[in-house]
Structures are given as C-alpha cells and as structure tokens.
C-alpha cells in the first residue's frame, strides 16, 4: 500500500493514508450572468474509506461544490477526477443523498431503492437487484419494510431507505447534502451514528455538506472550513478521535477544542 506522507498534518488516522478516490484541483466556478464567483481554486482529495465534511455559512458555495462533484454542473476551471476519470456528468459511481428523502409515494420501498438501476439499466436489471436491495434494507435496519409505501415510513426511516437507494449502484463516493437536517435532534444524532456504522461496514468514501459543527466533527476524519464569496477552504482540520465514534465523545475536551477551532473560523467570516 502506497503511504503518502502528509507534511504539516498532525496525527493522521489510518484512513487518511488510503488510495485517493476523488480529486479536485484548482476548481473554480463563476456564474457569469449573475457575476458571482462561487468557488475559488478549491483543492480536495478524498481517500478511500475516509469521511470528510465541508462546513461554512449559508451561501458560501458548498452546494455549488457538491453539484460540481455530482456532475450536475460543470466547473468554470480546474479538474474534477473520480477514479481516474474526469466527471463530465452524472455517473453511476457517484451516490447522492439530499435533505429530503424524496421517495416516490407510488412505489414501494423496495421499488424506490432499485429505481437508480431501473433508470440506468431497465426494469429487468432492477428486478435482478431485489435481493441486494433486501440486504441493504437489512443493513440500515429496515428489514421487513420492502413492500411498504413511503407514506407509512417516518422521516428517519425514509432517510434510511434513501441511503439504500444511494448504495444500490455501489458508488465509489457518497455525496451527502445535509442528509438528516430535516429530522428532529434525537433522530438526527441517532442517524448520524447509523451513518458512521454503515460507512465503516462498507469502507465508504464519503463527503458531507453540513451546517452543524458538532455533526461535522463527530462524523469526519477531516473537516474543511469554507469561507464565502468566493468560496474557498480556509482550513482542513483533522479529527483524531478514535473510531468508532460515540455520542459520548461530544463531551470529550478534544471534541470541544475542535468545535471551538471551527467556530472561531466561522465567526471571523460572519463579520467580514
């Protein structure tokens, strides 16, 4: 295994040494019509099996960054490379999840989960994935709900199903856009721990956009702090808390120090 030395990094968790999966070099985005520079020279490397987050104030370009990484928008300049190939549009090896579960109420949970397969490969291929979809339901703790319509699922259960739908194509990278922010606080903490478990179990490479500093710290190996207009990373903070993380770690002084450090960046940005 090639070990990349990272000068300047403190104690990097083992995962940070993994193979680079997703690489962004000098990515900028300017919306010419509105004359807004949303992103300025963003560099980012996601290594296999690591969990990274980006945090920043509203309108700092997080969503734009995520859309570029998902192949939904082209960058104005820079390179966006996933698994050695430039991202030129939506790809099956990119899994994505949004704030809303967006399950379709006329499909059963199982049919919702295999929808990405049905869209890409047709109905027959989707049917062939039913067993795998059931295993995923098992993984997220929704066993026995395959024939239930989404109207009968709670918010947290719907997001679990959305996780399955994201995983069914076996993506190389998971892009999460504030996935649990519509849930109540208790469910949200719980779902974050579930997310960690699922990611660890599958050795997933994950990138999370969030507004919540504690959420970013408890989940991530690296937290990127973003400044607004134009959006750029002001610091990449390595979180060296051991895995698996628990909610109890939120009372750990190291956790508090990391939260404090991120908060100080964001407070500075807010008054500029």
């Amino acid at each position: 295994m090639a070990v990349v030395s990272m000068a300047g990094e403190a104690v990097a968790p083992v995962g940070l040494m993994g193979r680079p999966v997703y690489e962004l070099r000098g990515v900028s985005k300017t919306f010419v019509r509105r004359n807004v520079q949303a992103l300025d020279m963003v560099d980012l490397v996601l290594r296999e099996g690591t969990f990274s987050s980006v945090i920043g104030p509203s309108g700092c370009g997080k969503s734009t960054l995520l859309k570029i990484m998902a192949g939904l928008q082209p960058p104005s300049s820079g390179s966006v490379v996933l698994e050695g190939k430039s991202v030129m549009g939506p790809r099956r090896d990119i899994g994505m999840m949004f704030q809303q579960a967006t399950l379709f109420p006329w499909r059963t949970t199982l049919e919702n989960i295999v929808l990405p397969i049905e869209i890409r490969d047709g109905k027959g291929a989707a049917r062939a994935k039913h067993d795998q979809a059931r295993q995923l339901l098992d993984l997220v703790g929704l066993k026995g709900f395959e024939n239930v319509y989404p109207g009968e699922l709670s918010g947290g259960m719907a997001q679990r199903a959305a996780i399955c739908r994201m995983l069914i194509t076996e993506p190389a990278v998971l892009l999460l856009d504030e996935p649990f922010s519509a849930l109540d606080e208790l469910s949200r903490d719980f779902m974050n721990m579930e997310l960690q478990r699922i990611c660890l179990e599958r050795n997933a490479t994950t990138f999370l956009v969030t507004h919540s500093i504690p959420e970013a710290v408890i989940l991530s190996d690296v937290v990127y702090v973003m400044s607004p207009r134009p959006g750029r990373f002001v610091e990449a903070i390595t979180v060296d808390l051991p895995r698996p993380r628990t909610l109890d770690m939120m009372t750990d002084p190291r956790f508090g120090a990391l939260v404090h450090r991120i908060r100080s960046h964001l407070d500075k940005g807010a008054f500029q």
Partner: protein
Amino acid sequence: MTQAQVLAPAIPEQTVWAERVSWIDRVPRWVSMLALLIGFLVVWQIVYLIELVSPIILPSPLETIEDLFVVGRNLLTGDYMLMALWITTQEVLLGFVIAVVLGFALGVLVGETAFGERAVMPYLVAINTMPKVAFAPLFVSWLGFGIASKVALAAFIAFFPVIVGTAAGLHAADQNTRMLFKTMGASRWQTLVQLKLPIGMPHFFSGLKNAAVLVVVGAVVGEFLGGGKGFGELIRVAAAQLNTPRVFSLIIYLSLLGLATFWIVAWAQRRFVFWHKESVTEETLAQ
C-alpha cells in the same frame, strides 16, 4: 362498607367531561340532507300555492315528482326518451375522451417544452377567454346537425381544464426530485414518464373533474343550438310547450348523467392516485 370508606384515602372524583358539540353539527348526514330537501320542497309548494310566481312557468313540486315517474317509466321501457338519453350520453363520452386526449397532449406540450410554454400557451389562453358557446353555429355548419357538432362543442368547452391540470402537474415535481433524477442519469423521457407525470396526477385529475362537468354543459348547449335528437332537444321542446314539470324532470335526469361522469373520474382517481392522501379521502364532490 362504611369502614372501608372511612379508611380509604380521599380519591378525587373522576374528571370526565364531554366536549360540547352544537346539535346542528351532530345531525347525521342523511338526516340533514333529507331535511334540506324537504324544506326546499315545502318552500317551493308555498310559493306555488300563494302564486308568487305564475303557475304557468313554475310547476308544483308534486307535478314535477309525478312527471319524474312518467319520464322514468319512459326511460325504463326503452322508449324515445331513452334513445335521446343515449344520444346525449354518446356525445358526453365522446366529447370527454376527445377533450382528455387533446387536453393531455397540449398540456404536455405546454408543460414540458419551452416552445409550448412561450408560444402555444398565449394562444390557448386567448382561445379560453372566448365565449366558446358562440362557436356552436360554426360547428353546426361544419359538422352538420348530427352528433358530431355536439361532440365538438362538448370537447371544445371541456378541454381547457385538462390542459391546465396536465401542465400544472408537470410543474409539480420539486427541485430536489428533479435533481435526484438527474443524478441517476435519467433521460428527459424517463423524467417525464417516471417522475413528472405520476407526481402531476392529482392536478391532472382535478382538471378531469372540471372537464367531466363542462362536457355535459357543452353537449346540451350544442343540442339547444344545433337541434338533433338528444336530451337537450327534449328540454327545448318541453320548454317551448310550456311543459315546465317536464323541463324540471328532464334536467334532474340529465344531472344524473353529469354525476355519473364525475363519479367515473373520481373512482379512477382513487384507483390510480392511491398514494395521494387528498385524492383518496377528499369528498367526491369537492374539486
């Protein structure tokens, strides 16, 4: 007994009380509907008895009910009235099918393409603002006095709500779901068929319900203005003969035709949009 009562700690009396609901909100539905109908008939009878309106133009309720039986017998025995009803039913059904097919096609054009929204929609809105009934003589001169001119007018009057319902439905998918379909690499066709059309079904069906009512209006107006052998013609003739009880009873039977088309649409909505709560639970008469 008395000893136990003395020894027992003081238990507060149970605080059970009923929420007050006014009596008028507690009346069962069928009772209130029946009461309303009887009240209406009584007022009608009084108006008739004191000759508030000339008896020549306003029949008594009894006369009307009597005629309801006459017309009903005629319909059941398959006499000329049944033929008339069948003709009007054909006009209504054909008009409805044409309105739905045409309205759906134009609705997709308007709701899905920029060309349709920018170029076609303004013309459709302009056509909709025209008094469509005024086209009836044109349809008669183009299509003759037969069933075709009535079907055309019925479809013409009913198709616009279907366009609006379809187009509004196509815009019902929110930003998130459309983005999700994009990330799955869905084509425009897939997005239309698997996302926009199903999500738009409730809107589409409310358009259909409007059309189901309007199509009967179109067919009957067509018969008034273009002759033929339908129910509208029977009404026109009865009115010309000042046979007002007959007019009333014919209208009542005609409204059953309107109710039937409406119910078919409502049934289809419950069947196909089972996942939409409002579509399933909504009162069938509410639109």
